[in-house]
């Protein structure tokens, strides 16, 4: 094989077949995928959760992961947030002509490892190669499907006044890592993406506590945006305590240099759990027993004070609105 991705590899001819067998099947293969049929045959019944997402992250490699592992984690987590056990995923790659083959191999390998770790099989895939400049290096789409195991399934419109708002760990790590890597910044202290599959922890949580009202991963737009979405669809007020937010000092430091607010930065390995206050301790115990939830804590409460709004109590004891993000958060210029 060439050391760069060539247009031929997406042609459907012999070159593509070689790429599929030598690279994709090697790292992602399983009984279903190996059959190389036009579609996967799945035996699934009952209430299913299904989700799709496209990954276009720049840079494609970052401390803590790469676009391949992220494409699995993102979709697995979205399915799991429905109180579901993710079973299968599909993946579609769009590659830019000239992408180094080594990069592609690392990405596919990371995807395979992430899938095995999450316990999902990759049952269908597709690869296209487009001319240089038509995409930025590599775009990946993944779609996931899983079995919902609780009734009713957690939902963004199910938060109630009196609910506790829990977060599974520190916030802002992924977003700051991506921005920092993109801008070529070398932070004094190490920051790393939190990208991870949360399904095993989530399944344990909903099995033991079917009372969970909402599960959401605060990805793009961060905690602030996700909570605004929840308060709007549930028509409740979320009152947060700024002091209780778990934020790594190095993330705080990096954000203050760049003029960013960690509450608006993306996370890829954290979830919000909203459930009646009387179950909060139990939920925290379950979360903290898992390495992915070891920093879990309660950050606020749902009330009926200002329906549809997120209110932040600052360390000074003042209160202010925590609004949705308008457009993209850009590093401060002046």
């Amino acid at each position: 094989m060439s050391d760069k991705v060539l247009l031929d590899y997406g042609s459907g001819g012999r070159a593509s077949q070689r790429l599929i067998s030598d690279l994709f099947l090697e790292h992602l293969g399983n009984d279903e995928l190996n059959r190389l049929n036009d579609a996967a045959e799945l035996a699934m019944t009952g209430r299913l959760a299904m989700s799709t997402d496209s990954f276009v992250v720049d840079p494609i490699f970052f401390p803590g992961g790469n676009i391949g592992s992220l494409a699995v984690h993102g979709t697995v987590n979205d399915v799991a947030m429905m109180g579901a056990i993710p079973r299968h995923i599909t993946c579609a790659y769009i590659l830019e002509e000239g992408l180094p083959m080594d990069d592609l191999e690392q990405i596919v390998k990371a995807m395979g490892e992430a899938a095995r770790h999450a316990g999902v099989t990759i049952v269908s895939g597709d690869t296209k190669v487009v001319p240089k400049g038509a995409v930025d290096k590599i775009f990946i789409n993944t779609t996931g499907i899983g079995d919902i195991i609780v009734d009713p399934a957690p939902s963004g419109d199910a938060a109630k006044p009196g609910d506790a708002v829990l977060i599974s760990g520190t916030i802002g790590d992924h977003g700051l890592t991506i921005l920092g890597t993109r801008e070529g910044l070398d932070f004094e202290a190490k920051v790393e993406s939190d990208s991870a599959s949360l399904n095993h922890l989530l399944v344990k949580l909903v099995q033991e506590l079917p009372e969970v009202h909402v599960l959401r991963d605060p990805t793009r737009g961060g905690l602030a945006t996700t909570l605004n979405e929840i308060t709007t669809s549930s028509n409740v007020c979320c009152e947060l305590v700024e002091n209780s937010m778990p934020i790594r000092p190095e993330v705080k430091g990096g954000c203050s240099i760049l003029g960013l607010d960690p509450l608006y930065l993306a996370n890829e390995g954290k979830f919000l759990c909203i459930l009646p206050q009387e179950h909060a301790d139990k939920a925290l115990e379950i979360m903290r027993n898992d390495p992915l939830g070891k920093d879990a804590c309660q950050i606020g409460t749902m009330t009926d004070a200002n329906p549809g709004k997120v209110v932040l109590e600052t360390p000074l004891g003042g209160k202010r609105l925590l609004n949705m993000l308008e457009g993209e958060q850009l590093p401060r210029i002046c």
Partner: protein
Amino acid sequence: MSFELLEKFRDPELCRKILDKMRSELDGELRFMEVCGTHTVAIFQSGLRSLLPEEVVHLSGPGCPVCVTHESEVNAFLDLAEKDNVILATFGDLMRVPGHNSRNLKKAQADGARIKVVYSPFDTLKLAKENPDDIVVFIGVGFETTAPTIAGTMKMARQQGITNLRVLCFHKTVPTALEALLTDSMTSIDGFILPGHVSAIIGIEPYKFIAEKYGKSAVVAGFEPLDILQSLNQMIEWRNKGEAHVANNYTRIVSDTGNAKAREVMYEVFEPVDALWRGIGEIPGSGLEIRPEWDQFDAKKEFGITIEEGPALPGCKCGDILKGIKQPDQCPLFKKACTPANPVGPCMVSTEGSCAAYYKYKLD
């Protein structure tokens, strides 16, 4: 500065103590104005605004360079964007500033204008070299904070023999604007929180007239809650004693004499000129213009641009807000026709604009 030291300036205990002291010493209203968008945001973000005693009235002044850029200046750079052989270089915050007929640079870009967002004026040197057949025009908007860097860029361009770089100079200077506010009969301001970054360049001397001529106090302050509270408290104490002073409370960053080197570069290239401010109008000596010796870089000269007072943006109350006569939520368009996603005036565009800060942080 170390993170630990910064944390000290956020210490809730200390802040509470100063707030208590303030309450006990307050005698009537204190109307203070901050003239830096970073202060505006800090006052809201820290929750300070909700904790200040009712008598302490917070006004946001002409502190964001994007907000004070005059409508005709906005129209001038929007016109320039339509020229074929021009590449406009700008800081990102100007992209969405609306001109008349809801034009803006973002839309111009979608229509094919060549616009490049730069992080530093120095990036324009490379841009000019890479596009020798075009004229690269940098939109020079900002205060004494940005002007020296742009002057430095022009000097470097001359050294490197770059001939296709121009600067559209709309720079403004802060102290003159404060004087205009103090003489305006509509305004009522008891004291100023002075901008940290601007003062790091100009020092505190240029503000002395505020106390000497107008009997008001002004304090250069840092951006942490404790910085701001201490400065407010100081102004209250002085007023109680019937005194007025100009002081520097931000000595960890700002020296009383400012940065002489930066000023030297700035005045080597620029000279004071009368300038138009949005909502305020013409203020004598409040702008910076490219000196004749440097006019090979002057975009106004190259393209025959003149800036004249024209009609204001219909409905927008930015002028009254920049002067502290109205608060953003008293503008009839606020949160209705005017939102950050669909801004009518620049105060809603810039993240440091007061309307945007009210929209983002204020709990009603």
